[in-house]
Structure formats: structure tokens, C-alpha cells
């Protein structure tokens, strides 16, 4: 079984990636990187990462979130996040990334925020 499962959905011009599993070094962070690269290559630049199924992340997973953010910003796109669990939120507080990333509690609020 893959460490991280990624499902892609479309909501208007926003692409939602539902992530389920762990984003850790090796499989998890590589899977996320490929998924984001694929979207960018298809011109999909409004991306919402649904993290509500992500139970665990290490520093390389956090690093992958940063890279995804940078990659998409560089293309004048927008990366937003949804459904951060308590532990993931704690890691973003420790790394001071919670204010860098655009995070939302619900999918509706997240979708609404894309302009």
C-alpha cells in the first residue's frame, strides 16, 4: 500500500487534491511532488490541498508543502490548504509556516477564497 494516496477533483477552475496517508521522506513527499508538477504542466494553477486525511508529516513533508507553494506561486498560481489536523497545525506553528500558507477549515471557505 502506498504511503500517500492522492485523488484529484475539479471544482470550477480549482483543482482539489485529496491527500490520504503520511507525507514523509521517500514515498509520501515524492508522490506529492509529482502530483503538483503534473498539475502545473497541465496549466492548472489554482490548487487546493485537502490535508484532512493526512495523519503524519515529517520535515521533508513540510518541505514538500513549501516547494509546492513556491512552484505554484512562481507560475502566478495559488496554493491553498484545507483540513489541517491538530498535529500538522502544530508543525506549521513551530516552523512559522502557518502564516505563510493559506489555510482554511472548510472546503467551502477555501473554494470561496480563490479569485
Amino acid at each position, binding site marked *: 500500500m502506498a504511503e500517500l494516496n492522492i485523488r484529484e477533483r475539479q471544482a470550477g477552475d480549482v483543482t482539489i487534491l485529496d491527500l490520504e496517508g503520511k507525507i*514523509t*521522506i521517500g514515498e509520501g513527499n515524492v508522490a506529492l511532488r509529482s502530483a503538483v508538477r503534473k498539475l502545473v504542466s497541465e496549466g492548472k494553477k489554482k490548487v487546493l490541498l485537502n490535508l484532512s486525511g493526512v495523519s503524519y508529516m*515529517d*520535515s521533508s513533508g513540510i*518541505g514538500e508543502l513549501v516547494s509546492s507553494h513556491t512552484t505554484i506561486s512562481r507560475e502566478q498560481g495559488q496554493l491553498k490548504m484545507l483540513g489541517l489536523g491538530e*498535529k500538522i497545525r502544530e508543525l506549521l506553528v*513551530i*516552523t512559522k509556516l502557518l502564516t505563510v500558507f493559506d489555510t482554511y477549515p472548510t472546503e467551502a471557505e477555501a473554494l470561496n477564497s480563490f479569485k
Partner: protein
Amino acid sequence: MTEETVELKLPSRIESIGEAAAAVADAARRLGFAEDALFGIDLAVREAVTNAVLHGNRQDETVPVEVGVAGTDAGMTVTVRDRGTGFDPSHLPDPTAEENILKASGRGILFMRTFMDEVGWEHPPGGGTLVRMIKKK
């Protein structure tokens, strides 16, 4: 009197990171650490073993990463040793500083220091780097 030690010798590859974390988490659970502490211990061990595998031993699978756990009623000490040339932990960039915040790496030691009570690096006889982390109960 209850004392427990666990020692692992693992090939320097990515898969060893999860194996080491699982063994340490099992020991921590037996020692009676709460779920919350277990999360932090697991993460700190992953970060330390990741550094040993990637930076210390550069994924040379013929070189071992050695993980040690010593548990008592008061807490646990975890050591992770590689065979690399080491680094200077007093000169690390702060990953939360503005100029570093968008870097893709450099947050492992921050997590180790956050979730463990003490973290220190040593250069044991025989070479390599040993990181010693203590978690109290």
C-alpha cells in the same frame, strides 16, 4: 531497577527510517509515554535517522546506522550514530528566519529540539556522528 535497551543496526537507506521509528515507538509505549509524547519521539527519531542516512552516510547501504534506546522509569535516551564526517550544530541557519522560511529543507533539527528535552551531538571513538536525545517522563 527496570531498565531496557534496544539496539538496531540498519542499512543506510530510506526504509530504515520507519523501521527505527517503529522500534523506538514500541519501546516508548512500553515505558508508558503518553500518545502525545509518542508523536514527538517518533518524529524526532525519524529526523535523526534521516540525517544519519542522508547527510552522514549518504545512503551508502553498506554503512550502518546504529540506533540505541535506553529506557528507565524516568524517561528514555535515544542515540543515532552514523559514519559520516559530521557538521557544526552551532552554525545552523534558523529555518524560521525570514530568509529561510521558503527553503525546502532545514527543519529536522528544529523538530528534534522541539519534541525532545535534550539534543546533543558527539563524535564517538571510531568516527562518525552520534546524536543523543533525551525525553523525560
